[in-house]
């Protein structure tokens, strides 16, 4: 389900945002983050939140999208169950 076209962020989205905002250093920073975290997005976000301030902002942005998606998807499900 993609409420209003919104999709839940993935590990690939996290990689893209780290590459985007870190520019030339993105690949190296991503490698370190991926090594420190497990395979899940939740673990990755926890590691990103404890990293440098720029990487922390990446995590903030992804959490906002994740929470938005979860809230809206839940509301859609509720509406469907009432229909």
């Amino acid at each position: 389900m993609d409420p209003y076209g919104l999709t839940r962020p993935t590990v690939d989205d996290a990689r893209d945002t780290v590459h985007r905002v870190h520019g030339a250093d993105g690949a190296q920073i991503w490698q370190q983050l991926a090594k420190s975290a497990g395979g899940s997005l939740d673990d990755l976000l926890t590691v990103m939140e404890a990293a440098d301030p720029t990487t922390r902002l990446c995590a903030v942005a992804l959490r906002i999208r994740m929470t938005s998606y979860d809230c809206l998807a839940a509301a859609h499900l509720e509406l469907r169950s009432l229909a």
Partner: protein
Amino acid sequence: MNTELFDRLGVPERIREIAGYDLYTADLRTTLDDLAERTARTVQAPVSLISVMLDTSQFIIGSYGVSGWVAHAQGTPAEWALCTHTVLAGEPYCVVDAREDPRHAENPMVRMTGLRSYLGVPLTGFGGHTLGAHCVIDSRPRVFSDTDRRVLTDAAAEVMTLLDAHRL
């Protein structure tokens, strides 16, 4: 995801400038909430936001009148935020009636919420980048006045003074 928009917002120098502020302290957030409330009351609008625009999301750091999932998420996806237009333009941005405006009528924020009109002004950081926006949102179509714009512009200057005291 909207890669082109995210690339425009995610310019490394701009994001690094936002990262140069400690945006997470409770006292700063409380002060920004108070400032947003003052703006809302002065302009007589039900909602006011102070936010920074990250690459994929609007991060609300001060607010008045926000509820529901936006309050819970402390932000919105960047492609839905009207403040994205203010930040990319680097100048005040106004929407008189979003439902009748072809640029915004299909925006999920307009379809989902009572958002009808918007006035936002940029927040400019020490390095000259537009970091975010201070805005008011109304639930009725509205032509904002020069006085409204001046209230927001003056408040935005106060926001930046507050943020400058929280530079890392």
